[in-house]
């Protein structure tokens, strides 16, 4: 690849779109009563309906409809007053009926948008549609190099996943984001994930496949206004991969176009290890899914009252929550972004709710704890410390019982499982020395060791007192309250 990203962006304007599949967190499947627990023994959560046995019939899970409407409303969509399911016909061993019940030209939700914050600005991503469908089973291809069906010795199919309700959320093409396109794509998926999480309709775990993205990318020559041929990159399964997939397709397509070739309309596979895509099946011999209205189901006709009721029950959405918190905590857009990008919003909010000042809560979670999380390669929120503990540490610092250095040791103790902050203080003997007489004797001895410094201070160079403070802190092994030590030194020498 010789075309560099920046170079590509001078000639081409990227256009991208995302299709996101989200497994709904209903207790039972889309069209039958089977449970949907992740990771159960293969083929133990199945029945005649989700196995597609001859004669079986689907019955719509009303809760799945409700969840989809929730999602539609949260994404500012209009909700169809009448729509139908459709059959998408194609043969594949993990599809029990060799057709998937989906929606075609009558989606449940359509024409919405989601605002995405990026670099302090806002991009409005149009939502084309949100529709409901059933998931397929899962194939395990054994033998062969690629783990794909081609070249495998044999395949095993687990139908536990077959029939789990999925929503597919399709954006309109996003254009005009220029070199930010990969970041906007990632920010959109992040925001979507947060919205879905706040709605409590899915556990949105990309690593477990409960949220999966397909990324469409194309380039148009700057100023031409004509979109190029798009590719569809399948199964991009982490936030970072979304960004990398768009980035890599922009580079690749620019390279193809610069070489005078044409971009082929095809499905591409994203590889986590290299961050690049490779060609899958060509879409030019487009598969004909022979969609037609599902005759085994009656139309879905959510009443306006029901939709209104669902709308009224929507929780506070992430964007509203963010403006509320940002103003409550008096943070700039960028400071707030940093907090959110660190995944610390929930823990900071909880810490503040437990009495810490927003500044303190932010300081601990974004400072010491973010460093530790980074070292451990985990999210800050998954560290073994609770907002309760952090709030308590902050309280101990404000009360003067701990200084920052001691507080860090307390946090270490909590992370190492030594108990609550108070227990760690107790066990490690970390409280600051607040006994003035003990401090004064340490000060006197430090002054005696540094007569020249004492003289400087006396003569008005107050800054020089720092040397004495340092010596006292050393003598007390950091357990002194530095501010109090400074006061006492100045009193002594005045």
């Amino acid at each position, binding site marked *: 690849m010789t075309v560099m990203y920046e170079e590509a962006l001078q000639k081409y304007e990227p256009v991208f779109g995302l299709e996101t599949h989200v497994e709904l967190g209903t207790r039972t499947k889309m069209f039958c009563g089977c449970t949907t627990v992740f990771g159960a023994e293969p083929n133990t959560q199945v029945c*005649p309906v989700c196995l597609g046995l001859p*004669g079986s019939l689907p019955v719509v899970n009303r809760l799945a409809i409700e969840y989809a409407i929730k999602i539609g409303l949260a994404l500012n969509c209009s909700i169809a007053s009448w729509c139908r399911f459709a059959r998408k016909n194609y*043969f594949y061993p993990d599809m*029990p009926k*060799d057709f998937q019940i989906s929606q075609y030209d009558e989606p449940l939700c359509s024409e919405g948008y989601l605002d995405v914050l990026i670099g302090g600005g806002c991009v409005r991503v149009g939502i084309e549609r949100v529709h409901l469908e059933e998931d397929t089973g899962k194939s395990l291809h054994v033998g062969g190099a690629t783990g794909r*069906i081609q070249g495998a010795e044999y*395949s095993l199919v687990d139908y536990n996943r077959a029939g789990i309700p999925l929503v597919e959320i399709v954006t309109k093409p996003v254009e005009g984001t220029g070199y930010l396109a990969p970041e906007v794509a990632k920010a959109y998926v992040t925001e979507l994930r947060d919205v879905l999480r706040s709605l409590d309709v899915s556990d949105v775990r990309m690593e477990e496949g409960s949220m999966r993205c397909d990324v469409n990318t194309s380039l148009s020559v700057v100023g031409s206004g004509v979109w190029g041929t798009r590719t569809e990159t399948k199964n991009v399964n982490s936030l970072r991969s979304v960004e990398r997939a768009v980035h890599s397709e922009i580079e690749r397509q620019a390279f193809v176009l610069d070489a005078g070739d044409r971009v082929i309309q095809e499905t591409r596979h994203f590889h986590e290890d290299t961050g690049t895509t490779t060609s899958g099946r060509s879409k030019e011999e487009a598969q004909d899914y*022979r969609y037609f209205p599902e*005759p085994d*189901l009656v139309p879905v006709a959510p009443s306006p009252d029901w939709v209104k009721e669902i709308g009224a029950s929507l929780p506070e959405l992430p964007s509203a929550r963010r403006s509320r918190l940002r103003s409550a905590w008096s943070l700039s857009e960028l400071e707030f972004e940093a907090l959110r990008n660190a995944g610390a919003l929930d823990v900071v909010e909880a810490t503040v709710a437990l009495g810490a000042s927003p500044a303190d809560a932010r300081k601990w979670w974004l400072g010491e704890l973010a460093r530790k999380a980074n070292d451990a390669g985990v999210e800050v929120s998954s560290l073994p410390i609770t907002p309760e503990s952090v709030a308590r540490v902050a309280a101990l610092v404000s009360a003067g019982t701990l200084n920052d250095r001691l507080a860090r040791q307390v946090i270490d103790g909590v992370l190492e499982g030594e108990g609550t902050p108070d227990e760690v203080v107790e066990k490690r003997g970390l409280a600051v020395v607040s006994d003035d007489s003990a401090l004064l004797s340490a000060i006197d001895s430090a002054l005696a060791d540094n007569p020249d410094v004492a003289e400087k201070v006396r003569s008005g160079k107050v800054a020089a007192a720092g040397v004495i403070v340092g010596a006292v802190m050393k003598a007390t092994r950091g357990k002194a309250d530095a501010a109090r030590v400074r006061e006492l030194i100045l009193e002594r020498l005045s």
Partner: protein
Amino acid sequence: MNELITKTATELAAAVADGEVSAAEVTAAHLARIEAIDGQVKAFLHIASDAVRQAQEIDRKRAAGERLGRLAGVPVAVKDLFATVGMPTTCGSRILEGWHPPYESTITSRLRDAGAILIGKTNMDEFAMGSSTENSAYGPSHNPWDLSLVPGGSSGGSAAAVAAYEAPLSLGTDTGGSIRQPAAVCGIVGAKPTYGGSSRYGVVAFASSLDTPGPFGRNVLDAALLHEVMSGHDPMDSTSIDAPVPPVVEAARHGDVSGMRIGVVTDLSGDGYQPGVLSRFAETVELLESLGAKVTEVSCPHFKYALPAYYLIAPSEASSNLARFDGMRYGLRAGTGSAEEVMAQTRAEGFGAEVKRRIMLGAYALSSGYYDAYYGKAQQVRTLIIRDFEAAFEQVDVLVSPVTPTTAFPIGERADDPMAMYLADLCTIPSDLAGNAAISVPCGLAPENGLPVGLHVMAPSMADDRMYRVGAAVEAALQSRWGHPLLAEAKGLAS
């Protein structure tokens, strides 16, 4: 003939309930009849090995003073596309040979609850596609009136079993006429309930928007009895109607048509209809008039498009419904190599010619670029046919026509001529497309060949009781004229 097998279902249920006869005796008599003659009729694909045990259980219940169901001790033959636990379900196809469903259809489950003895599974055109049972992978069934003739289809095995006294009742399904046409050519009663009135759960699908399970009986009251027991809302079938079952038994007991407005569909007559069919039909209409009905002629101008519309809609749905038979999970698996090769080979070997023809027709009609011209247009025609019915039912209470243009035809005559075969369903298809109720009731023998002719009575959706009222009136009047049931004249079987 053992007299138990000539009794009606209504009589048998009463006799068992009163202890005049045991369910085991009734069952044994029918099993003996099957043993004696099914080698000729070939109505059955499978005989329930536990039939006697089912009957003994009924007898035990009776002895213990437990409440007996409405069909307690009455044998019922079941078309081989109802999923039944303990009996295979093949749909007349190689592709499902030996498949034992792990679950029970709603309807057979209701019949078991009502005390019926599920005596066996009956032959049918493969996946219910056909009008003669000649498309069965297991060979044709034979018409008890003349063993060289077809018993109609696709529920031909069920019709033949009842006409041959192998069972007093049987279950069929009607997608384009698959209950009414075999009932007509076998000289018995067969009804297609309102679509959604009888559950499809556990009934292997041919065309989902059309498939309607229904009853066969040797008289109107028996058909009504089975109709009532099998019907009613089923939460497992989304298209099932959540409303009370129309009072069909009550209607069958009161065959009174005085003051009833009856419309003769002028569009279902004329060229292509056998003269004897038309003459018997005309006489029956006169009979109805003499019984006090007000008869008028009604035109349903779009009925002439019903057959082509049906042959787009039904195959389209079938092409999708039958996709699941791919050798991956159950039934036949043929070939080696990739999954795709196994799927292709399984389907090539497992499906018969007619099934393949319809899958191809349907896949074509649904394909992109052709959808609007074929499937889309057919759905528009369907709407027009529904409107024809609506307009007609504003003027009259029921509509009547012949059931099928001809009497039973010889085995082999139309086997290689699909178009000729399709015409057998000319009169029955409109009600399938519209989803309303219709019944076939014997109305005499065609003079030219002495074979049975059926009267077709069509009623509005969820007014199934009306057609039973008309059927019962015709049956009573004709039987009193003949002095015996029509079936007594069937001479195909030695005894």
